[in-house]
């Protein structure tokens, strides 16, 4: 927090350099971190693992001074510290590298490395000396980049190397890398890892966060797993199996999953006939690599996968909200123009998006206007809206979905999360879809609404709708879906029939690791051909 930490006592390799002890942090009453202990040693690469909402980013923000913890303490080089601003942590020697590089794109590489600490002569920046030192630094790191080039002209990977070089040049004790690899090519990842290992060997402590699980074993020495804001596990990476890691991350013991009765889902409902949705070879740059998916009318197909596996990207690409590089989508036998939301909607595809606030509700509009939003042209004649038709539509859906609002004219932002979700489901059902893509339909809503939404999904399938269900909750997938397609790193890893699905199979499939646990062989193709 104050400059003296820059010269804090040196930490021997293997000793803790950055620690949290019982750190607690809440946001408007919601616990994001609950008594989390974390220890980073000098000279190690330590990975933080957890699903969405586990508290990873909150913990990183506490470590880097973005958030002040409500309780517990942060220790740096053996002393308790109180970072009030990110700058405090930076001055103390903690560098952070985000996916989005926070450097100045219009300045040269060398200027960026020495930003704020430029070598000066006669009060002016000594460009010659600066470039020379930058070149030396780059050579030391084995990075081949022209230090006089404008940073913004470099690729994202190179920009991250520059950020690392900067971290080195300020003599950082700790480097925190938050999803640095998510948009890098594999060659760039190699270089990044080499530089990271180099830093480790100099006694720097590194925190590494990535949703690409394979990378963790390749790079990291130790792992700490968080779940629901709590510490779950810390141990050496080499002694942690994939299955163990994933089951701890998801909070499911291997035998617990198939307990049943945890959801409102009823019987399975497979129907034969022509498929309602056929997706083949769907390819999105850096995200999806040839995803195939078939859904029949009356069938609920679950999409499973860990964070970053491409679940949301798959449904978004089908819906046209994400540009697909190649691949075909057809609905009820007719080809759908990809890359166009309006085209998808017109073909009978609807998407309930994962992010209710940002991509779903229009907060200041009424329940009524929100429900009618996607069907306004159908409710109009010659460009004039028919209030009577909208009233009838809204009335039907408010009753059918039991939407609790003081009146149809109540603003949607005043409703509970569960009722907002029902309003959005009503919006999509009003378009009379044949394929309904549901991305985490029950996340963040109360137990009652959750049960209602689950029962509704069942009901819709029984009425012949083809449903794609994305959920991070295993119960929901196992009980709600007739079939589960497991995605891993943007491709289909496995396809499982949920009627004879064992929990260890699903876990192993989620981990993307067929060989890790010989007790859990994965049957992929041919199971229900």
């Amino acid at each position, binding site marked *: 927090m104050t400059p003296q930490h820059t010269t804090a006592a040196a930490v021997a390799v293997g000793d803790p350099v950055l620690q949290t002890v019982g750190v607690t942090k809440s946001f408007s009453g919601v616990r994001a971190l609950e008594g989390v202990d974390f220890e980073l040693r000098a000279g190690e690469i330590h990975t933080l693992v957890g699903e969405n909402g586990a508290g990873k980013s909150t913990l990183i923000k506490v470590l880097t001074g973005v958030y002040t913890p409500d309780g517990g303490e942060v220790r740096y080089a053996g002393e308790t510290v109180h970072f009030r601003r990110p700058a405090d942590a930076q001055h103390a020697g903690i560098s952070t590298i985000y996916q989005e590089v926070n450097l100045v794109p219009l300045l040269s590489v060398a200027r960026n490395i020495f930003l704020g600490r430029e070598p000066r002569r006669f009060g002016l920046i000594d460009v010659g000396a600066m470039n020379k030192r930058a070149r030396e630094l780059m050579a030391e790191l084995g990075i081949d980049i022209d230090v006089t080039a404008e940073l913004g002209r470099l690729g994202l990977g190179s920009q991250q190397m520059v950020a690392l070089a900067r971290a080195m040049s300020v003599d950082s004790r700790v480097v925190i890398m938050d999803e640095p690899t998510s948009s890098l090519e594999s060659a760039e990842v190699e270089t990044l890892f080499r530089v990271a290992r180099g830093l480790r060997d100099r006694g720097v402590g590194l925190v590494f966060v990535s949703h690409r699980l394979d990378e963790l074993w390749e790079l990291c020495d130790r792992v700490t797993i968080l779940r629901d804001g709590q510490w779950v596990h810390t141990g050496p990476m080499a002694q942690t199996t994939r299955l163990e890691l994933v089951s701890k991350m998801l909070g499911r013991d291997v035998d617990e999953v198939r307990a049943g009765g945890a959801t409102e889902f009823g019987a399975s409902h497979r129907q034969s006939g022509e498929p309602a949705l056929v997706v083949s070879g769907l390819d999105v740059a850096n995200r999806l690599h040839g995803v195939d998916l078939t859904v029949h009318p009356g069938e609920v197909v679950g999409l499973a996968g860990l964070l970053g596996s491409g679940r949301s990207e798959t449904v978004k690409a089908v819906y046209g909200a994400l540009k697909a590089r190649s691949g075909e989508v057809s609905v009820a036998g007719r080809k759908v123009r990809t890359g166009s939301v309006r085209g998808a909607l017109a073909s009978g595809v609807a998407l309930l998006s994962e992010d209710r606030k940002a991509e779903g509700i229009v*907060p200041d509009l009424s329940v009524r206007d929100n429900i009618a939003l996607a069907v306004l042209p159908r409710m109009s004649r010659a460009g*004039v809206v028919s209030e009577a038709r909208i009233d009838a539509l809204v009335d039907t859906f408010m009753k059918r979905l039991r939407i609790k609002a003081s009146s149809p004219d109540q603003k949607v932002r005043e409703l509970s999360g569960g009722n907002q979700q029902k309003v959005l489901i009503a919006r999509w059902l009003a378009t009379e879809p044949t394929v309904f893509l549901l991305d985490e339909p029950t996340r963040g809503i109360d137990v009652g609404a959750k049960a209602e939404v689950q029962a509704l999904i069942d009901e819709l399938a029984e009425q012949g709708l083809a449903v794609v269900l994305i959920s991070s909750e295993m119960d929901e997938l196992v009980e709600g879906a007739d079939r589960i397609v497991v995605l891993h790193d943007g491709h289909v890893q496995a396809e499982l029939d949920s009627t004879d699905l064992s929990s260890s199979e699903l876990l192993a499939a989620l981990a993307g690791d067929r060989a890790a646990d010989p007790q859990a062989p994965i049957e992929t193709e041919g199971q229900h051909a």
Partner: protein
Amino acid sequence: MSDSTATATAPGSTGSTGGPGGSGRSGTRFDVDWVRRNGVFVALGVLLLANVFLTDNFVSTGTLRLQLVQVAPVVIVALGMALVIGTEGIDLSVGAVMALAAALIPLYVGYGSVGAIVVGLVGGVVVGLLAGVLVGVVGVQPIVATLGLMVAVRGVANLFGGEIKSIREPGLVSLGTGDVAGVPYVVLIAAVVSLVVWLVVRRSTYGRQLVAIGGNKLAAQLAGLPVRRVLVTTYVVSGLLAAMAGILLAARSQASDPTKLGQLMELSAITAVVIGGTPLSGGQVRILGTIAGALLMQLITATLIFHDIPDSTAQIVQAVIVIAAVYVQLGRGKARRS
């Protein structure tokens, strides 16, 4: 889109009753939201009453007529601005568009008044189309796109117009100065435009989509709304209305001065919209509030002039009111988040 617009009978009415309470739901506590929505009507009512008692000869047809004639172009421009702000945009080019339309009039008056007016309006539509494409299709920030157009279009107007040209064509002169049963054409046109825009916002598919896009663009896109088309249309409407105002102003003054005409009109229009209770963050369009906002600013200026207070003071008073209006909006935002 709001309680006050819903119950109003005709746009152009001063709304001096303060509007029907939208506060019933929110209890008896002091309600910032209510002030934001209805403050402009209350202020207008109070100022009218004060003038009735304190200003000599205020209640005369001559005074009222003059005030309404002066405010009419501002109302027309502000209505277009309200639509643009409803999409979370802004249109700084309106003043320059007024000058362009006015500059085109003397050039094409040879085709008769109607021909010249059509050419002027087309000029406004073209600029609006440009702004709409820049914002809606190319994705330039509205403030940047229309700031550029503001400068460029003013330049084009000067190129066409050069110096002050007088307008003698009888049709145009009577448009600017004539009346029907004592109501000046200019005021009548402003009233009709108000009614049309009000109906569009309330009843048309386009109006509903506009408000949804301003409220959450991403959600609107994912709901399959024609976002580009609505944005382009909105800037075209703003350009058209600005051109209309420019032509009326030139017809009234019987002269077209491309360097002066419409100057700072963008600020007057934005002011009317903002103090009328339309948030700059989009998602709402308050037509009656905008009209009341324009009337209020007009009346404040007039009041100060009646009482021999210098123009510079009037400007300061206007600035204070705008800041207060924005402050009330911010207060509401904070209250929502807590």
